């Protein structure tokens, strides 16, 4: 195993008994490269601007129907140098994949290739209006179609709805397709079954679509309890929502059997595709009987997470659900022309080319979807190719198993005995000393220079720690992480109370979340006086 830090640099800061470090207080509050930054409202001015525009001609006639905004808006401006510095300083208080290892389970924090960014900024993609006449946007529609082709080939599904804006929006799209299909049969049914280990968005989505959510129990091996599931199926069950690989990082080996049973009972199978990265190019969800699955382009296909979006959540659909997909969609006809099908042409197009009427459940968003994410994802797919994508899944799974087997002797790994994991390794907080918790371990990892893994999720494992390395980490990077993780895990097992105050070296110590929620301060207010 590599030395923890090849550069040889070690922090020299002394830690005092109270756990705070001993360096002298600085006048500014800055610590060399760690610079404090006020709010723009504390440094900007109403009369300052970083954009040169003609001054307002107060004498010019306006046509606002007497609704001129007279009172100050309350904004402040900064010049360009001040603006760039403000945001550069803020950026340095953030952790990102570019900075280091980001093993956030279920979030697939892989490297974001910069070619994707460059391609998305080509004026032919970035500077095109969604309502331009179709003859002027054929290239954009081709991107949508080409991406659709990749998604359908990789998943083995029939059709794809491209407009959903993110994973949860995609889930909604899939469940609404299911509801519409069941309504067309005369009965929307009442219940959606969701495993206890599911993402919170699954039950929230099902509830939104007016379904009652019931939990499916798990087996001791971390899988869906197939017998319990089968026993619950019946004429009231609309759908089963399953994440595969599941949130314990395990493949559901009985997926086909589950799908067949659900279909036999007249229901549909929704698959949460958040973890598609583990199986892309290795197995096609269409071969497992899935009816609908969203794909987070910002996970498997590397579009940047951007500090919380934008995402993109196309939904692949089985033939049974395809007629219900939302508008608009794109389709290429035999003559090679790519059509954008909006409300107006939908029925006619479906009659001519699909041999039937489209029974779309409606529209989920203005315009056509996350084009800027489509160009990035397509660039990623073209770069990797069929061979590279298969390698992606294999390396992601290899890295996760390597971490699992390098830590299982030290940390409780509830499903390690059941066999290999997929793209993420799951640990629990069993045998932690003192009153130390998973949170303390996570915060101690921050001091070691890592973004923590996903914590307290899935809910089925006590003090869960879900580690997803992805395929874009080198072995050296993973070895260093293992060394660091083992050291903090050992401290947690030993009951090292200093961990309760971690992190020590981050831009902020632990933040008081209770106070934030008790008396919410959600916008800056000018100081009184």
């Amino acid at each position, binding site marked *: 195993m590599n030395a923890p830090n090849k550069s040889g640099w070690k922090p020299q800061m002394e830690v005092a008994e109270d756990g705070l470090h001993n360096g002298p207080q600085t006048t500014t509050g800055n610590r060399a490269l760690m610079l404090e930054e006020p709010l723009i409202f504390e440094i900007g001015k109403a009369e300052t601007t970083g954009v040169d525009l003609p001054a307002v001609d107060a004498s010019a006639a306006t046509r606002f129907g007497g609704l001129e905004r007279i009172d100050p808006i309350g904004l402040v401006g900064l010049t360009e140098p001040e603006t760039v510095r403000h945001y550069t300083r803020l950026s340095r208080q953030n952790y990102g994949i570019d900075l280091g290892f980001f093993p956030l389970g279920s979030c697939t924090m892989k490297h974001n290739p910069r070619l994707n960014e460059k391609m998305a900024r080509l004026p032919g*993609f970035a500077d095109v209006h969604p309502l*331009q006449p179709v003859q002027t946007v054929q290239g*954009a529609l081709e991107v949508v179609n080409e991406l659709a082709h990749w998604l359908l080939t990789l998943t083995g599904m029939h059709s794809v709805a491209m407009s959903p804006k993110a994973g949860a929006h995609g889930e909604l799209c899939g469940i609404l397709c299911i509801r519409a299909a069941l309504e067309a049969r005369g009965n929307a049914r009442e219940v959606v079954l969701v495993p206890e280990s599911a993402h*919170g968005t699954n039950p929230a989505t099902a509830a939104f679509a007016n379904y009652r959510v019931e939990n499916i129990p798990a087996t001791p091996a971390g899988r869906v309890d197939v017998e319990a599931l089968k026993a619950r199926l019946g004429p009231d069950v609309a759908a089963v929502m399953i994440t595969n690989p599941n949130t314990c990082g395990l493949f559901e080996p009985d997926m086909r059997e589950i799908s067949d049973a659900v279909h036999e009972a007249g229901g549909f199978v929704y698959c949460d595709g958040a973890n598609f990265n583990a199986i892309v190019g290795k197995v096609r969800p269409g071969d497992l009987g899935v009816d609908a699955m969203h794909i987070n382009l910002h996970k498997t296909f590397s579009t940047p997470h951007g500090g919380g979006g934008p995402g993109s959540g196309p939904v692949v659909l089985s033939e049974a659900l395809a007629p219900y997909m939302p508008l608009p969609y794109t389709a290429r006809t035999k003559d090679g022309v790519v059509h954008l099908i909006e409300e107006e042409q939908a029925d006619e197009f479906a009659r001519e080319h699909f041999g039937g009427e489209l029974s779309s459940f409606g529209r989920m968003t203005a315009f056509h979807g996350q084009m800027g994410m489509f160009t990035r994802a397509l660039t990623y797919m073209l*770069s990797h190719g*069929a061979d590279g994508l298969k390698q992606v899944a294999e390396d992601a799974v290899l890295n996760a*198993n390597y971490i699992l087997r390098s830590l299982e002797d030290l940390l409780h790994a509830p499903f390690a005995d059941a066999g290999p994991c997929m793209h993420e390794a799951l640990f629990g907080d069993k045998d932690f000393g003192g009153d130390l918790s998973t949170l303390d371990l996570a915060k101690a990892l921050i001091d070691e220079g890592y973004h923590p893994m996903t914590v307290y999720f899935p809910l089925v494992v006590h003090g869960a720690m879900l580690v997803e390395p992805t395929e874009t980490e080198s072995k050296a990077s993973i070895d260093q992480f293992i060394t660091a993780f083992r050291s903090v895990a050992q401290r947690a097992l030993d009951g090292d109370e200093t961990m309760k105050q971690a992190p020590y070296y981050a831009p902020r110590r632990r933040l008081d979340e209770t106070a934030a929620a008790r008396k919410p301060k959600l916008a800056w207010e000018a100081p009184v006086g």
Partner: protein
Amino acid sequence: MRYLPLTDTDRSDMLAKIGASSIDDLFVDVPEVARLDGPIRDLPMHASEMAVERHMKRLAGKNLAAGDAPFFLGAGAYRHHVPASVDTVIQRGEFLTAYTPYQPEIAQGTLQMLFEFQTQVAKLYGCAVANASLYDGSTACWEAVAMAGRVTKRKRAVLSGALHPHYSEVVKTMAQFTGDEIADSAPSIQTEPDLEGLISRIDDETSCVVVQYPDILGRVSDLSKVAEAAHAKGALLVAVNTEPVALGSIKSPGELGADIVVGEGQSIGVGLQFGGPYLGLFAVRNPKHVRQMPGRLCGETTDAEGKRGFVLTLSTREQHIRREKATSNICTNSGLCALAFSVHMTLLGERGMRELAAENHRLACLAADRLDKVPGVKVLNNAFFNEFTLMLDGKPAREIVRGMADRGVLGGVSLGRLYPGVEALEHALLVAVTEMTTEDDIETLATELEALVKEPAQ
């Protein structure tokens, strides 16, 4: 493969450590019948940066970029200048490649930015609190209707006929699943919107009235009458804004009494991008409504050493805590677009926002006056900001738009495309003018319209 750091030696060393003889041993749980052998068929193999760039450039080249044509499209997406530093900031890896700020000690950059963003949006909208963004204006509009239902415990929303038709469609689509009743009406082609007609549809069962400001025809009208009427019946006023630049010149919806203000933030910092990703803005005037809001909220607090810091807060409203009882199923939002908006807004400031809005309006007035002089063309609006409706004689506006596009002019959005089948709107053309529009562009549009409007209908 340039993105995959493991070497073959690494792979075999790691398999040895795991105790597996081959990578397939790690996929044993995948039923053999479903396992794919080689690379998936019907897809190309990996490609160099050069090759991918060539392919993507060829596709991009098939589009007519807005910057390469006289350009007048709006209807919910506007072409504004984005200062160079906006893109520089959002491409910093610490912003671009960060996750949702669940570990606040190492996400203060994103969190402080969101706190500033929320403040900017709240001020622009004349509201108390804004959230940390939603997907886009149309989905924000639905979330507002859903929230009004939670606040009033009523299930009947009244939509103005002059609400963007995509927004109405999204609301109606979602409502069919939640059991909300949506009262809709066709837009009327009149100089002034029919606010009296709208008010007459509000009753004791109404949860909210949804009005766009400026509306889909570009008209600007006083929402305070609608607010009064709604409040008198115990309903909320939801104001929808698709052009935030307008609020540098005209009164904020909050000032006019709107309870929930939502909109599209794309105009500021984000760019056209063929419709997405965009930026949903969501704000409430009454701080008491905060706990019914959808989406993430960033709040101020202190750390263990007493320093100011920021965290995501009130998350007991959200799906990852509340699951099926959450106020919305939203998870990922539009973080990076919110950053772009906030950087652009910081560059503009109060003064820049006022100047930008004034310049848009000045050019729009110039365009309206010039186009109104074209034979067979009439400007519908009395009041507008940077977008107005033209009534065209002769052929349907859709044909005229296509005809102009053939000649390299992107001359506006035909209302016939937005309202298929509504005969009264077939001859209406929506024209948007921004600071990017030149006087030459306006002259070109006038000339094109003059030539095409005169042609006899087929």
